[in-house]
């Protein structure tokens, strides 16, 4: 009587009877020793290739924080001097060819701090009208200023990097005339950022009209629609310097793309070897938190900028793998006879 006696005939399939064919690789030194050597043999050349590529990339880094008293920018550390302009000169030993990218780098700047990261309003930046006039609470304490909503709101926008860097080539050692290197302001932001994530408030009237009833961030000198005095279309939330800044870096030491120096033609290097002047309008204070400011010039290869780590890592892992292979080979040779299956009794 009862439920269990009902007929239930399951399909006699391989799955239900757990007879699915299975491949059970059994790893022993004998069978997989080659794997270690193969890994080694593949990794080491890759590593060398990457390392060489990385080494061929030209890169120069100029620290212009002005901590050292001898530095021309030392004077700018005191907050009294505004605006403070300082000039640093440096020499390129070898010419930079192809497109050259100019970065600014900050150290000990915690863009990845939770309170900092969340202090923004993405819908405001996306041109949402209601968010423009009523920014998210996340932006506190940079949400409103004098009863006006801040656009763009939040700590990230408020602390936007505002040094101005200019690069001059000393064309000729005897001739003191300086040649201004043309720096391109456009094309430094991700396409998706510029066209999808960041949008100005909609409307046909002028930007100033559209940002009416808002105020600029506390630390800014000018409103968001006047960020780029030279290019009307590079203003408002779609200002590329602004967009670049708004991508918060992962580490406290980071670089951000500042300007592009485009390749002129095949005959002349973009930046020939020689002496350069870096003209800095020093606005951005980092001294209070022991930060550093740098200017970086770099070319890129197929794998981006200079970074020897990957190559070294490949070479190291490849070598370790190779070494392990050798160790195993030795052990295997030594203990070959010790392993047998005699202790199984039926």
């Amino acid at each position, binding site marked *: *009587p*009862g*439920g*269990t*006696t009902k007929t239930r005939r*399951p399909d*006699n399939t391989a799955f*239900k009877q*757990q007879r699915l064919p*299975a491949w*059970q690789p*059994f*790893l*022993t030194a004998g069978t997989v020793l080659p*794997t270690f050597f193969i*890994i080694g043999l593949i*990794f080491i050349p890759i590593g060398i290739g990457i390392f060489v590529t990385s080494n061929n990339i030209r890169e120069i880094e100029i620290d212009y924080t002005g901590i050292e008293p001898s530095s021309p920018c030392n004077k700018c550390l005191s907050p009294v001097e505004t605006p403070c302009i300082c000039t640093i000169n440096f020499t390129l030993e070898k010419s930079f060819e192809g*497109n050259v990218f100019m*970065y600014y780098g900050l150290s000990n*700047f*915690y863009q990845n*701090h*939770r309170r900092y*990261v969340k*202090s923004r309003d993405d819908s405001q930046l996306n041109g949402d009208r209601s968010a423009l006039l009523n920014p998210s609470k996340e932006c*506190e*304490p940079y949400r409103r200023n004098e009863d006006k909503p801040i656009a763009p709101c939040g*700590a990230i926008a408020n602390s936007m990097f505002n040094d101005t860097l200019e690069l001059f080539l000393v064309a000729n050692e005897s001739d003191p005339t300086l040649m201004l290197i043309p720096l391109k302001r456009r094309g430094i*932001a*991700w396409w998706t950022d510029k066209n999808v994530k960041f949008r100005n408030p909609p409307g046909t009237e002028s930007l100033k009209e559209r940002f009416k009833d808002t105020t600029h961030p506390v630390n800014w000198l000018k409103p968001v629609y006047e960020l780029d005095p030279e290019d009307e279309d590079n203003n408002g939330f779609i200002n590329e310097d602004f967009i*670049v800044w708004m*991508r918060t*870096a*992962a580490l406290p030491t980071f*670089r*951000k*793309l500042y300007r592009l120096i485009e390749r002129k033609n095949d005959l002349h290097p973009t930046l020939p070897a020689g002496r350069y002047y870096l003209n800095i309008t020093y606005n951005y204070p980092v001294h*209070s*938190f*022991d930060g550093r400011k740098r200017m970086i010039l770099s070319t*890129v290869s*197929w*794998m*981006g*900028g*200079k*970074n020897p*780590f*990957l190559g070294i*890592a*490949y070479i190291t*892992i490849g070598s*370790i793998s190779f070494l*392990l292979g050798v160790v195993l080979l030795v*052990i295997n040779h030594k*203990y070959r006879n010790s392993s047998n*299956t005699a202790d*199984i*009794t*039926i």
Partner: protein
Amino acid sequence: MSRSWLLCGMKPLQGSTHFSLGNQKVEKRMGCQQSLQSSEVLKVRTIYINDPLKNTFCTNSISTTKYSKWSFLPRYLYLQFSKAANAFFLFITILQQIPGVSPIGQYTTLLPLLVILAISGIKEVVEDYKRYMADKVVNSKTTSVFRQNSWHVIKWHEVNVGDIVKTLNEEFLPADMILISSSEPQSMCYVATANLDGETNLKIRQASLEVAGIIKEGQLVNLDGKIECEEPDRQFNNFVGTLYLRGKSPISVGPDQMLLRGTQLKNTQWIIGVVIYTGFETKLMQNSVKSPLKRSQVEKVTNMQILILLLLLFVISAVSCVGATIWNKMYLENIWYMGISGITPHNHVFDILVFIILYHNLVPISLLLTLETVKFIQAQFINWDEDMHYEQNDLYAMARTSNLNEELGQVKYLFSDKTGTLTCNTMAFKKCTIAGIIYGNHSDNTDDGNENLSRASFCEFNDPKLLENFEDGHPSSEYIKEFLTLLCVCHTVIPERCGNDILYQASSPDEAALVKGAKKLGFVFTTRTPYSVTIEVMTETHTFEILNILEFSSNRKRMSIIVRTPAGHLRLYCKGADTVIYERLSKDSLFVEDTLKHLEIFATEGLRTLCIAYTDLTETEYQDWLQEYKKASAVSQNRIQRLEECYEIIEKEFLLLGATAIEDRLQANVPETISTLLKANIKIWVLTGDKQETAVNIAFSCKLISSTTPRIYLNADSFEAAQQTINHNCGDLGNLLGKENDLALIIDGETLKYALRFEIQKKFLDLALSCRAVLCCRLSPLQKAEIVDLVKKHEEAITLAVGDGANDVGMIRMAHVGVGISGNEGMQATNNSDYSIAQFRYLEKLLLVHGTWNYFRVTKCILYSFYKNVVLYIIGLWFSFVNGFSGQIIFEHWCISLYNVIFTSLPPLTLGIFEKCCSQKSLLEYPQLYTVFQTGEMFNTKVFWIQCINALIHSFILFWFPTKMLEHDMILRHGYTTDYLFLGNFIYSYVVVTVCLKAGLETTSWNRINMVLSCPHFWMGFLLVPTTCLIQNFFWKLIKNTYKRGLLEEIQELESRKDSILEHSEIFEKRMTAASLAVSFSTQPCEIFFRDDSVDLSAPHGYAFSQTEGAVVTQEELVRAYDTAKMENSRISKRSSDFSEIF
């Protein structure tokens, strides 16, 4: 009946109440329980017969569902959130709703939690719906009820208290009733109580004769009166009530008039009863309580590990909190860009909450669901297994719970019931010795293998020599005739003619086997009248007048019958144990030595032997004795004792005829299975309610013990004696105590009662554990459970109890894993078990294959789940070191919530479902493999820590490699710089890949953001990072496989080499032949010198006989009550008249 009404709601130790009617010892126990209860004020319920409107009691419908429509949601949520892990995640979800606390969004935990709750919710609904449907089937069974002066067929749930119900043969009783009339003589009826107590012999119930008389004379319409009885309780054998019929004196009714719901009417055309308890108030339903929730060892360890992880979580949170405090002190004041000055700094409680939320996913949220799914499918694999399909009943193995799948892989002690588990509970007359000649000794091939044939014919005695000798006038021909005549006459069997065939109804299966055996040899027992039996021998009819029946009891170990032969002689026929018969042999008795030798042969084979003897009586001798007998039967006190003394007088001067050997059929392949299980280092204890002799017989026949195994008998009648025997034996064992010896320990229930006393139970256990085999006999269900409990408590090992009857319910529920043998009459064991199988032999596959695989899979799955979560979420800790312990998360929010639900949900599932440590073939071929898992070394805290540290290393590599790679933020061809999410996606992808590779699988659907994919660094690192992580694991595995190999590794290698795959059946056959050749245990002689006389080194005795004792109707009354010659006619007339004559 369908649903799990489970017996005995009390804790098993307190009292399993479903004892057989015959078991006196148990009833003593019950007596004390009753006295306990009677101290409470007994409430009385009054039932008005035939007037249902006056009775207001609960309806007869039952419901075993867990939820109702309305209670589902609250109850379900309550159950879910009472699980610690779910509650934890609920807590986290709530925390996340506090604005500003959660670094990972508000819904990252809520979403997966909802998915998980939804899935288990659906599962619950489906299961509950099944229960609901099963209840519905039960509630809509039909029965006849007498209402408004006629019989109505109504559904069970419409039956009310006070109704007069008629039930026909083979039907189940719809409610608890008082029997008032039946078709049988003296208003008797038979009921099968297998559903309640698991006993296969039928119980006799008898209506009070006064009532029966009234009903017979009168009309049911006029039946008017009331019953006063006690309120419903759960005692099966306890009922007191009084029947007041109008105009009659009160009639008391007791358990003998009680018919319980769940029992089945047998061998009785119809009965009429008055309903007294319905629905939930029936004794059956009163006894239904939920099975105790069993949790597997692995689950306990897992819970422990989750706790450790929680602790780890708090430690990490605290560390981060301290880090945050230090960092804030050092930097925060000077950081102008954060805009902190305007905000009051957060306090530590707030900080720690942030970090708890940040790291809370260290505890894998999907683990419970994954495990549930995996175990569900594993259970399905058990259900689907064709190798555990019993063709005959079309029964598959059934996993009734999936909680304990992995426990099957770690069993150390197996407690087995005997009847119905090891044996089929069918007796067959197999061999005999008559006048010193052994018959039936030639081997028959139907023994194993072709089970269908042998089952069909109960009698397997087919030695043509016997009949030849009888017919050809062999010198022993007369003895043969006398022997077979005795088998036909000396018994209490009742014949029932069924067409041309005769069926025998017997409460003793031994007697039935003997009578059937005799019938096959041409001595057919045809008719029983109150004072005679008629047998047919070679077409001649002989009628023996039965003068006296000298009843069987287990003290007397024999049963005699005094008859007047057709020739007019007085003769006493006796059958009984060799010991008691041999004491009473006359000096003239022949074949004494030969028979003794043959008895020994039978006993060694595990056959149940009975000696057969007779003696002729003179008239005067008999008349003298009859006087004594009448005197003895008239005594009111100690009548049974007096009668037995009286029997003793006449049972003497026996002449030996020979002996019978009955096979208590073992189930198929039991000896082979036992030998395999022993090889797998599983200790087998037989716990039976049956007699000691029977248990020993079975132990021999299933090769648990051999004839050379010394047997320690613990039979003591006092605590001191028991203590002394145990101490002596422990002393004799000396150093061998605690090691496994080739010894058998046999103990009976009475002695066990003393042995389980606190003072000596440890010593007893030590002794028992030093023996290869332990047989416990004459146990009450409670004692079975107590033994299991004893081992469970003192040995840190997994116990498994297997049984088929309701008397095994206690131990099935007590053991870590309870296995029920299904397909027999009783459902109690099955309904209380965790797994049910149709045959004992399927245990082999269940344990060795399913158990091992499940354990392997579940542990792998759990460790892997821990691993993958630790790998991903510890990265948050590494990131904290570079972001000033602010609690910022490096991944996108949805990545976190989908990690467990989508990206890495498949690997643990596939691990849990498809992973195999070795093939089925190897597992069955080398049972020793089982020992690898038994110890639980695959899964303990150490393994867990290793896995955690491994995960820690991996997460370290997975975080720092990409971080270093992206150090300068310039990794794109266009010179664009990146943000933290870019790095996060890098790391996340690597984690997913590494974790999936770690599972040794193809990549799951992990595709992410085109920008990341277009970055060459990504692809370069893609090769590097996972390789770096896994190279160390790879290396370790290699080292382990090559130089630190255990048995498992050996087999694995063996397997990967072999290409031919043998089917399971082939292996089984191969091994079966091997097993029958080799004895299942070492045959080295036991060298222990035993001084105690409890140790039996001699050859075994084979005596065993089962017969109901101390029932309502004595054996003699029963025999005298039947007149099968008359009954034939009356039955036919009853059938045709459709019971109308009584109304």
